[in-house]
C-alpha cells in the first residue's frame, strides 16, 4: 500500500506548474508554426517539441538548470562545471549531456559553421568584392538593437547577445549568447530563427519605403566569372586576414573557411559531403534538442523574453535599413550602377533575403535579374556578423 502511495507521488501531473503549462503551449506553438507555415522547421520543430518534453515534471531528462551562478573557480572549466552540477543537481539526463557537453562547449555551433562553409558558394562575393561592404553595413542593425536593449535595462552582455540576433545567423547567435549570457539563450535562439523565417514579411516594406521605383529598377551588369583558383584562395585568405585582426572571431570564421576549403578544393569530396550531410544532419538534431531543452519556465517566462522578441524585430528591421541606405550611398558613388536593394541582403538569412530582393526587383521589372548580385552581400553578411561577434567577445568576453 505504501508502494502505491509512493507511486502516486511520482505522478508528474501533481507537480505541473503554471509555468510548465505555458511553456508546453509555447513549445506546441513553435511546432505548429514549423509544420503549418514551414517556419524554419529544421530548428523550430526540434526546439518546440523538446520544450514540451522538458517541461513535463519529474521526467529526469533535463535536470540541470541552464544558467547558474557558479563559483569563480568552477566556471573556468567545463569539466569542473559538470562535476559541480552533478553534485548539486544529480545525475545528468540526456538533454543535460547534450546541452552541457555539445552546446555549451561550442562544439555544435562551430561544427554547424563548418558544414555551412562546405555548403556556401562565396563566388558572387569574390566576383564583386565591393558588395562585401554591404554585408558590413547590415551589421548596423546589431548595434542599434544592442543600444536599444541597453536603454531598456539589459546589461551589456545580454544586450550584445540580443543585438547579434540582427545578424540573422543562428549559430553565431547561439555561440555568442552561450558565452556571454546563457540565461537568455532560449529567447535569442528562438527569436533569431523565428524572424529569419519572417524575412519575406519584414523586409519588403522597409526596402520599398527607403527606395524609389527608379532605384529598384536599376539593372546591374553581369558578374564576372570566378576561377577555381580564386575560390580556393578565398577561404585561406579570409581565415588568415580575419584571424590576425579579430582573433576572437577566428573559431567561427576558421571553421566556416575550413568547410569552404573542403568544398572548393575538389580533392576531398567525401569529407565535404560528410560535412554537408551526415555530420550536419546529426549536429543539427543535437542543436535543436540542446536549445529546446533550455526552454524552462524559470528562465524563459519573463518580461525579458518578450522584450527580446520585440528587439529582434528592431534588429532585423534596422539591419535591413542599414544595408539599403549604404546601398544608396554606393549607388550614388558608382553613378547609379548599383541597385541599392541588394544592401538588404546583407542581413544574411542565406539565400532567403537575396530571393526577397530578387522578387521585389521582378515586380518592378520582370527582366531585372539581381539575385546573384544580392548573393554577394548575403554571404558577406555571414562574415560580418561573425566579426561583430568577435568584437563583442574581445571587449566583453
Amino acid at each position, binding site marked *: 500500500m505504501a508502494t502505491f502511495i509512493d507511486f502516486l507521488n511520482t505522478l508528474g501531473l501533481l507537480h505541473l506548474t503554471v509555468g510548465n503549462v505555458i511553456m508546453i503551449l509555447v513549445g506546441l506553438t513553435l511546432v505548429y508554426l514549423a509544420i503549418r507555415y514551414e517556419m524554419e522547421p529544421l530548428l523550430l520543430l526540434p526546439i518546440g517539441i523538446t520544450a514540451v518534453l522538458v517541461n513535463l515534471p519529474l521526467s529526469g531528462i533535463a535536470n540541470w538548470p541552464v544558467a547558474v551562478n557558479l563559483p569563480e573557480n568552477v566556471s573556468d572549466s567545463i569539466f569542473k562545471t559538470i562535476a559541480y552540477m552533478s553534485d548539486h543537481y544529480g545525475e545528468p539526463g540526456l538533454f543535460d549531456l547534450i546541452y552541457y557537453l555539445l552546446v555549451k562547449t561550442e562544439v555544435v555551433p562551430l561544427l554547424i559553421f563548418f558544414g555551412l562553409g562546405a555548403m556556401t558558394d562565396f563566388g558572387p562575393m569574390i566576383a564583386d568584392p565591393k558588395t562585401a561592404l554591404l554585408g558590413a553595413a547590415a551589421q548596423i542593425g546589431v548595434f542599434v538593437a544592442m543600444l536599444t536593449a541597453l*536603454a531598456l*535595462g539589459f546589461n551589456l552582455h545580454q544586450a550584445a547577445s540580443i543585438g547579434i540576433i540582427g545578424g540573422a545567423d543562428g549559430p553565431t547567435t547561439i555561440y555568442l549568447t552561450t558565452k556571454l549570457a546563457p540565461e537568455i539563450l532560449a529567447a535569442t535562439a528562438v527569436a533569431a530563427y523565428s524572424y529569419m523565417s519572417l524575412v519575406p514579411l519584414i523586409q519588403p516594406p522597409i526596402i520599398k519605403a527607403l527606395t524609389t521605383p527608379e532605384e529598384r529598377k536599376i539593372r546591374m551588369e553581369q558578374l564576372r566569372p570566378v576561377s577555381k583558383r580564386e575560390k580556393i584562395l578565398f577561404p585561406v585568405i579570409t581565415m588568415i586576414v580575419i584571424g590576425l585582426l579579430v582573433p576572437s572571431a577566428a573559431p567561427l570564421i576558421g571553421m566556416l573557411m575550413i568547410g569552404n576549403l573542403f568544398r572548393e578544393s575538389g580533392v576531398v569530396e567525401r569529407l565535404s559531403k560528410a560535412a554537408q550531410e551526415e555530420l550536419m544532419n546529426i549536429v543539427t538534431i543535437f542543436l535543436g534538442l540542446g536549445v529546446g531543452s533550455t526552454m524552462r519556465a524559470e528562465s524563459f517566462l519573463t518580461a525579458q523574453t518578450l522584450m527580446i522578441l520585440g528587439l529582434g524585430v528592431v534588429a532585423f528591421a534596422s539591419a535591413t535599413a542599414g544595408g539599403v541606405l549604404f546601398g544608396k550611398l554606393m549607388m550614388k558613388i558608382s553613378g547609379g550602377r548599383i541597385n541599392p536593394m541588394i544592401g538588404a541582403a546583407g542581413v544574411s538569412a542565406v539565400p532567403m533575403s537575396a530571393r526577397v530582393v530578387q522578387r521585389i526587383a521582378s515586380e518592378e521589372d520582370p527582366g531585372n535579374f539581381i539575385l546573384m548580385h544580392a548573393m554577394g552581400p548575403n554571404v558577406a553578411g555571414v562574415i560580418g556578423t561573425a566579426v561583430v561577434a568577435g568584437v563583442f567577445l574581445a571587449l566583453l568576453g
Partner: protein
Amino acid sequence: MDVTQVIEGGWITVIGVTVVFTILGILALVLYFVGWLERRLVEREKPAAQPTATPSPAAEVKEEKPSIPPRDLAVITAAILAYTAEKASQLRPLPFRRKVSDSWRLYGLQTQMEDVEDFNYEIGKW
C-alpha cells in the same frame, strides 16, 4: 538603464562598426588584388584559352538552372553509361587514380565496388 553601460555600449558600437567595415573593406581589397592577379596569370598562361577559364554565366550560376538541358543530359548519360559499361567489362590498364564520378549512382550494383576502391586508393594506405 545604466548610463555607464550605455556609454560603454556607444564605444563598443563605434569600435564594432569601424572594425566590421575595415575588415570587410580589407577583404574586398585583397579579393580585387587576387582577381587582378588571376586575370594576369590567365592571360600569360594561355592567351587564347580564356573561354576555357571563363565558363558561361549560365554554368556559373549553377544553382538555378541545370548546366545541361536535362533531356540532353539523359541522352549523354546513356552514352556515357554505355561507354563506361563497355570499358568496365574489359581489363583496364590499371589507372593510378580513378575519379569518382556522379554517374556511379546510376550503375546499380557496380556502385559499392568502385566507390570503395577509389576510397581505398586514398584512404587505404593508412
